[in-house]
């Protein structure tokens, strides 16, 4: 815990606020990469059902591929190791940070660098994609909020790219 408190974040907490959009860094959270051919053993460990459709979110877990989920939760979240089961569970809490894009123009800012059809990317959807040159995981968590998961070392670059897009909104 003391390690988490002492850790320095790659971007500042609230880094842009303008008309129709604000950009900020989400609080630290626990992240687990879950892999399994069959989701049942994972569900047994977790105690809840995983989303089956690629791109769906359920109970903090986003289905990223036919055998891949990302679970996000409060910092204290722990998951059993799954020893002996045909699953792979990896704690990746510090692999990425989450940038929040809030406001009625959130989608316009993302559209500046992301090739997804955001009009058809409904609330409750998540997918890996790209923003300009970096890979991101994009989650649409409420009407006016998108969450952008990005590897820590890419975060300062992405912050600048999002900020630049936000400044150019009219």
């Amino acid at each position, binding site marked *: 815990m003391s390690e988490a408190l002492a850790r320095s974040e790659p971007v500042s907490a609230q880094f842009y606020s303008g008309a129709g959009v604000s950009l900020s860094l989400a609080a630290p959270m626990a992240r687990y990469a879950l892999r399994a051919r069959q989701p049942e053993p994972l569900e047994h460990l977790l105690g809840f059902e995983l989303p089956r459709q*690629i*791109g769906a979110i359920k109970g903090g877990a986003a289905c*990223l*591929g*036919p055998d*891949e989920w990302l679970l996000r939760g409060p910092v204290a979240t722990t998951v059993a190791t799954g020893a002996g089961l045909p699953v792979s569970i990896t704690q990746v809490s510090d692999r990425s940070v989450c940038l929040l894009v809030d406001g009625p123009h959130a989608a316009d800012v993302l559209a500046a660098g992301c*090739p*997804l059809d955001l009009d058809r990317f409904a609330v409750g959807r998540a*997918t*890996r*994609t*790209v923003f300009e040159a970096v*890979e991101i995981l994009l989650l649409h968590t409420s009407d006016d909020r998108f969450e952008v998961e990005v590897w820590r070392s890419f975060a300062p670059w992405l912050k600048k790219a999002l900020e630049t897009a936000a400044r150019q909104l009219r």
Partner: protein
Amino acid sequence: MLLIHCPYCDQQRAEIEFAYAGEAHIARPLDPAAMSDEDWARYLFIRSNPRGRHHERWRHIHGCGRFFNAVRDTATDKFEATYQAGKPRR
């Protein structure tokens, strides 16, 4: 923007999310040690390289992460079909 249909995501997605991965349906020989150098070299290096209909592998690397197969016209760059890995040749 060239859109490619990912057979796992079942969506049209931008080409920038994908990586090309060479000709499809090339099975690795089961017993390489029993092959002549010539046959081994043919397996490793010789590809059909057609002008027109081409079966090839793609990977939705910045998406679901999956490899899949596609039929693409090498002259027009039009995708005729994409289908999951392991499914029969179209």
